[in-house]
Every structure is written in C-alpha cells, then in structure tokens.
C-alpha cells in the first residue's frame, strides 16, 4: 500500500470517528485523531491479522492502552472486515456490542480489555511472553498515551519488559501533550518522555507520529532489535486534521454537532 493510500485511510478513520461519536452522542473523538496514522499503518499494512478468524493464535496482537480512543479502533476493525460498518453507530448503546471501552469478549478483533489507564504495557508484555513461550513468531503492538504514563504500573512493566528482553513488544507513545485535565507538561514532570524509556533500557526512537513513512521506518527498525522492547515516541497533535479539534483539549470528550460533522467532512473530502 502506498503512503498516500495509508494517509487516506487514516483520514477515513478520523471521519468515521467524528460520524460515530456524533451518531452515538457520546465518546472521545480528540484522542483518536492523534493516533490515526499509526492505526492506519498497523491495521492496514503491518499487522498479521485474519478478520475471518479473530482469535487466530499466530496473529499479531494489539493493545490500545489509551482505551478511550476506541472509536478509531472500532472504525479500523469495521473497515478491516471484523464487523459491518453500520455497527459503529451503536457505540456505547445498550443493544450494541461496541462498549464504551474495549471489551475482548464482546468485540471481534479486540485482544484485551482496556480503558483503565496505564495497563497496556504490562498486558502487552504478558502477551509477548506468552507468544514467545509457545514459539509463536509475532509482534505485540501497543499504543499508550502520554498522560497515562503518569501511572506507576507503566514503569513497573517497562522494567520487566527490559528484563525479559521482549523484542517482540513494540509500544507507540502518543505524545500529544494533552490529558483529560489539561496539558501533560503542566500536570506532571513526565517530559522528556524518550529519556525515561531509554533509562529503562528500551530501544527508543523519536518520530513524527503523523508521518506515515517515519512510522513505517520506525517499525522496521524496531523489528531489527530482538533483545530489547521498543518504544516509538510519536510527536502528535490531539484532534489532528479536524480543524476545530486540533490541539484543543475541549475535544477530549465531546460530541460534534451536525454542523461540526459537515466541517470535518469538508476538511477531509480531498484527503480520503
């Protein structure tokens, strides 16, 4: 798939999120936009998956540690063929299987529960070790937000993953510098993020999280490192490519109006 095709998929997923949250009347659109390009590369190029057999043991695994960004995960799964697109509008409704945060038993293609922040690295490490112990040659990909790296368990897992030389674990840090309550740089002393993962003995790369080519290259590089887990620190923009959402934390959790949906469609119409 070409870089342009992947970029168009990323924007298609972004618009899916806007439309889904609009129809559902609830959800977190802003946090989806900063990871759209990473999601496009992972789900539409990189990951070894079989939508007809979601629990295929040999598959790559995916952990959306920042589970509140699940509208974009659900959009990616629907467009991969795990379930019909029209199911997206049921998001967060009682009759739908699309839970407010990812549920591994209700939603085909979801590999773990997530949404309680900070847990994705530890769960991903368990998956990576479990696959390795059973001789499965695959990769476990996780996306963690920057805000959730304030949780202590992130660093417990970081220590363990380095100890176990989990070369099959590749974690993307979505560094949009926003969290529910404001700027990460104002709420904590997390930044600089990459330094900390380096100090925990991970293989660390720093990229532009909206540059498809850089995402692809970083994954290829991470795969060459077999004796360390990989952290790909992605500089991103919360709300990316949706004009009124960009770098605007009011869209952490907010429902677009009819008019705002139209603005998003207009902004993306030539990019899809």
């Amino acid at each position, binding site marked *: 798939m070409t870089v342009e095709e992947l970029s168009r998929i990323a924007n298609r997923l972004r618009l899916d999120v806007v439309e889904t949250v609009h129809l559902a009347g609830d959800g977190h659109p802003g946090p989806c936009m900063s990871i759209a390009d990473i999601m496009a590369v992972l789900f539409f190029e990189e990951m070894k998956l079989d939508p007809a057999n979601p629990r295929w043991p040999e598959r790559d695994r995916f952990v959306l540690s920042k589970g509140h960004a699940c509208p974009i995960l659900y959009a990616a799964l629907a467009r991969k063929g795990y379930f019909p697109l029209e199911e997206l509008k049921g998001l967060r409704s009682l009759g739908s299987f699309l839970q407010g945060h990812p549920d591994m038993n209700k939603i085909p293609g979801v590999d773990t529960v997530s949404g309680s922040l900070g847990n994705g690295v530890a769960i991903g490490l*368990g998956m990576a070790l*479990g696959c390795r112990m*059973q001789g499965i040659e695959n990769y476990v990909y996780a996306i963690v937000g920057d805000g959730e790296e304030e949780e202590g*368990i992130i660093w417990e897992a970081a*220590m363990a993953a380095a100890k176990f030389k989990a070369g099959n674990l590749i974690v993307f840090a979505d560094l949009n510098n926003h969290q529910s309550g404001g700027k990460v740089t104002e709420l904590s002393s997390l930044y600089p993020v990459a330094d900390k993962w380096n100090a925990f003995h991970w293989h660390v790369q720093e990229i532009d999280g909206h540059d498809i080519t850089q995402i692809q290259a970083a994954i290829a590089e991470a795969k060459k490192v077999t004796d360390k887990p990989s952290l790909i620190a992605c500089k991103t923009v919360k709300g990316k490519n949706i004009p009124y959402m960009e770098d605007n934390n009011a869209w952490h959790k907010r429902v677009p109006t009819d008019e705002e949906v139209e603005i998003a469609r207009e902004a993306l119409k030539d990019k899809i």
Partner: protein
Amino acid sequence: MALKSTREAAMLAIQELAREDEKIVIVSPDAVAAARATKFREEFPDRVIEVGIAEQDAVDLAAGLATTGMKPIVVSYAGFLTMRACEMIRTFIAYPGLNVKLIGLNGGMLGGEREGVTHQFYEDIGILRSMPGVKIITPADGQQAYFAAKAMMEQEGPCYLRLGSGREPEVFPDGTPFTFGKVREVKNYGNDVAIFASGFIMDRAIAALDELHEAGINGTLVDVSTIKPMDSEGVAAVLSRCGCAVTVEDHNIYGALGDAICEVACRLNPCRVLRVGLQDKYPRSGKAAELLDAYGLAVKDIVAAAREAMK
C-alpha cells in the same frame, strides 16, 4: 501425607500438575520464596516469571499471558495481591474471565502475626467476593491445600486460593476429602448449634465444638472451604437442622464467610447467625496464638457465640 504447611502443599500440587501441562507458569512479584516455589523454579526455571516487587504488573502480565492460552498463577502476599492489584484483578482478569489463578499467601492475622497490620490480611476474601466471576477457596490445612490447589487448576477462569504462612496446624486426618464448591460436615454431635468455619482456624472451631459438647451442647461443625460459589443448599440444610449458627474465620467479620452464611440464612433459612472473626478493627503485632486470642478468635469466643446464638 507429611505436608508442612498450606504453602508447601499447594505448591507441591502445582508442581505435579506442571509436569503434565507446560502452559502452567508462575508469575511472581518477588514471592517465589514466600510461596515455597523454589523447587518449582529449580525444575521449571523458564516457567517462573519474576517481575520484582510489582504486584500490579504481575497481575496485568498474567492477564496478557492468559489471552495467549497460557495458564498463569500469580503468587503473592494476600493483601498486596488483592489490595495493591485490586483493580487489575477486577478489570483485566475477572471482567474478561481470563484463566488466571491467584494465590494469596499469609492470609489472616495468623499469616501476618508479628509483622503487624501491614502484613496481616483480613480483607482479601471480602474484596474478591464482591467481584463477579472470581471463585474463592480457603483450605483448612496442608493436606486440604494440596487438593484445593489441584481443584483450583481444574476450574476454568479466575480463582483465588488463600494460603497461610506456615503456622497453620494439620487438623484433618489423611484421606479427608476436598470437594470444590461443597461444604463438609467435620463433626456432628447434634443439632443444638451449627458452627461454620473456614480456613486455618479450624483447630479452634474443633476445640470449641468439643468444649460445648462436654458442657452438654451438641453442635455440628461444617468446613466451608469454598467461599464462592457458596454451597447455599448445603449451608441451608445445616441451618434448617440446627436453627442457629456461628461463623468462624480469620478475616474481618465483614465481607467473607460470616456475611456469606448470613446471606444464605436470610434467603433460605432465617435464623440467628453470630460472626466470630476480627471485629472490624486493626489488631497489632503479636505471637500467633496470643493474637488470635486477643482479637476475637479465642476458643472461648466461639463457645460464647454459640451459647449466645442458641438463646
């Protein structure tokens, strides 16, 4: 069977099972020695995942392992496991129903005794009992722990096994059966009062029953070794015969055996039930027997509760 304690016994059983099932792994937040799993580690060095002092990581990591079909057992001190990693157990193991087993060590006042409140755990069962989908087993002695560990591994999904610290006496003769999910009558002198006991204070419950018998009160002692799912019908049958009951456990009186029996009584056989256990307070450091005596678990406390229940 010469088993020194519930920890040795349970780990022996798990080691035996691990020889037949290579998916069994132990996840340890620096608890291999405490869990008496050093022999397991010698035999299966690649099947002990030591994460260091990090209970939350251990539980989440086990959840991840289980999604791949492995059968992880997380071993740790009962309170560090169920309190420090409480949310991880609930959200990432119990909610998806993953096949992760949890072993809580040093349960109760007896388990922590001289260490003091930080290492005495009398909330673990209450915490886990409130989580849908978690089974809970509390064997009374080493031999029971051996069979309880095997029974746990036969269960699909989350299951918690509460063990002691090596101070728990052997109370049952060789060959005493262990049946998951069923209560068992230990001694039946008559139907004056029912004593439901759980875990490694069984010796005190037996002593109390015998003392009551010598005083002309003939009761029935029931071992409740599975706290969840509760054998409601088995409990109700005893309540129906006796008409009053005492519960005995090394746990706070809220949340565990006492509450579970009261719930059955309310629902199926209303009658008086008095709860012997830690009376909703924090104890202090002390030698095991003295501590239990000082904080509501003396034989005389059980006897007094039985007499009161019969009024």
